[in-house]
């Protein structure tokens, strides 16, 4: 019995963004794991991100609709978590651990080498759209410091000399 009000429709307008049906289904599945659908919010954003590499603006309201919560809340979540990207990123995301153990074992050299090799700094994406470089907090690989993570893979210890071969693999 509860439908959209005419008011909100006029106000918000129709969102151009439509969730992929498979993504929407995956989000609905996720919702079942929790007492409240809202809890699937982070996972929902990850699902969207898996498809687009990032969370496009329109997805915020779309995810909110599926979860039955406000778009303000979804954007609040999306901008809180460091692994949710609200800007386009490259095909591969290089997360460099900059926490203490890595800092003490060669992080600076590793970072410099990455910057030199990719020609980008934190938060930037290479011109060919291949890599985005971001810092990450302790990867829990301190016995293999300095460490970094590319997509789902953790590497360490990594020396600047390892980088060319390592990056080569991520097209």
């Amino acid at each position: 019995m509860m439908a959209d009000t005419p008011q909100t429709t006029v106000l918000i307008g129709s969102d151009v963004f439509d969730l992929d049906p498979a993504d929407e289904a995956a989000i609905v599945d996720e919702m079942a794991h929790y007492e409240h659908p809202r809890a699937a919010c982070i996972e929902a954003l990850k699902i969207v991100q898996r498809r687009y590499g990032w969370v496009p603006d329109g997805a915020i309201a779309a995810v909110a609709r599926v979860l039955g919560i406000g778009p303000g809340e979804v954007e609040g979540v999306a901008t809180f978590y460091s692994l949710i990207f609200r800007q386009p990123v490259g095909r591969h995301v290089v997360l460099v651990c900059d926490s203490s153990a890595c800092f003490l074992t060669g992080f600076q050299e590793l970072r410099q080498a990455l910057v030199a090799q990719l020609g980008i700094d934190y938060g930037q994406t290479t011109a060919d759209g291949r890599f985005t470089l971001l810092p990450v907090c302790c990867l829990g690989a301190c016995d293999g410091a300095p460490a970094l993570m590319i997509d789902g893979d953790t590497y360490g210890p990594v020396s600047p000399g390892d980088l060319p071969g390592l990056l080569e693999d991520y097209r």
Partner: protein
Amino acid sequence: MSHSIARQRDSVRYRSRLMQPEAERRPDTHPLTWRLRDDGGVVWLEEYLRKDGYQSVRKALAESDPQAIISTMKDANVGGRGGGGFSAGLKWSLTLQGGDIPRGYLICNADEMEPGTFKDRLLMEQQPHLVIEGMILAALANNSFYGYIFLRGEYVTAARVLSRALDEARAGGWLGRDIDGSSFDFDIALHTGAGRYICGEETALINSLEGKRANPRAKPPFPGQSGAWGKPSVVNNVETLCNAPGVILNGAEWYQGLSGDRTDDGGSKLYGISGLVENPGLWELPMGTTGAEILDRAGGMRNGRQLKAWLPGGASTGFLLPQHLELALDFDTVGKEGSRLGTGLMTMVTQEQSMVALVRNLEEFFARESCGWCTPCRDGLPWTVRVLRALALGQGEIGDIELLEKLAADCGPAQTFCAHAPGAAMPLQTALRHFRSEFAQGISEPRIKAEEG
């Protein structure tokens, strides 16, 4: 893809490992790791069962006495391994149960993000069923109807292993309805995070689990009164939960005995070391093992470097000096030296490394990871970072050290909303105390004081 490149990529792939060989690890002395294999492979259900797996659950379900589990855990005095050291048994005894109180949640804190810490990862990647077994015991004790493993998003391998293990356990009848014919129902879901250190703080974790921003919650009410979705909830660290099966199976006395006469705290601990040491790594050792012994196991400082300072258990603990290496690494002893045991994984700093730069790195971490809820942490920590950067560049001003001291003091416990900022204050405070002259070297200009009046 050329073969050689693939090999190069594999050669730098990080693998979690324990430094002790199988031969050294025995069921009666290494309850956390004795089942681990030398090849680092996963101990799946079949092997786990072969190695006495789920025996504690079977025993506890048969006895069906949650209060007995709690009192055994209390007697064993298993201090929380997430960094706080709070007795797990005591925590469980405070969870609301009975009457109208709904059954709640049992949450495994697998968010391991404390800089310098890499222990929970090993347990989850190689021995997932021990985590699950510990969770079942805790659920039984706390009358929880559902469990979550809150795993940090970057632990991809652990996620894969845990979800297969959960399937195995479910198929094996260790999870789900009527576990082992006991009429006890309990299941576990794996929840993966999306970054942010603060998610490890137990109440922030609950908010994050509920799909919200990971701001911590005020206590009281404690999670045991009103936790996830307002239901009584228990949050325990992975390693803490992994201690429970041994305790329940072998009793509190046995557990207490594991540490011998090193300390009043019982049990064993996953200790580790990182920084410029010869062989950084992880060992299961009796509680109260000294820093010296662990450094020794790691082969000492790398290339004969000199130790200047060390953090006993992660970025949020206070700096200790070389002379403190002889102390037993337990909750009380380390606490008395103005630091904390924390996670028990040491980070070593060599003589030539700059304390100013390191503290700047630590504070930058804490400032970046602040949730932004309370003022001292949100706006005070970035100030410390700016001052430390200035000092590192030699652009400090007179009064900066006092300013840092005041900022650190203002980020003390109870003054901030959660323990994140006090965690940031501790290394800053102790570094200023022990290495003041290093900071003073960064002061170049006298501060030009504004005219009074």
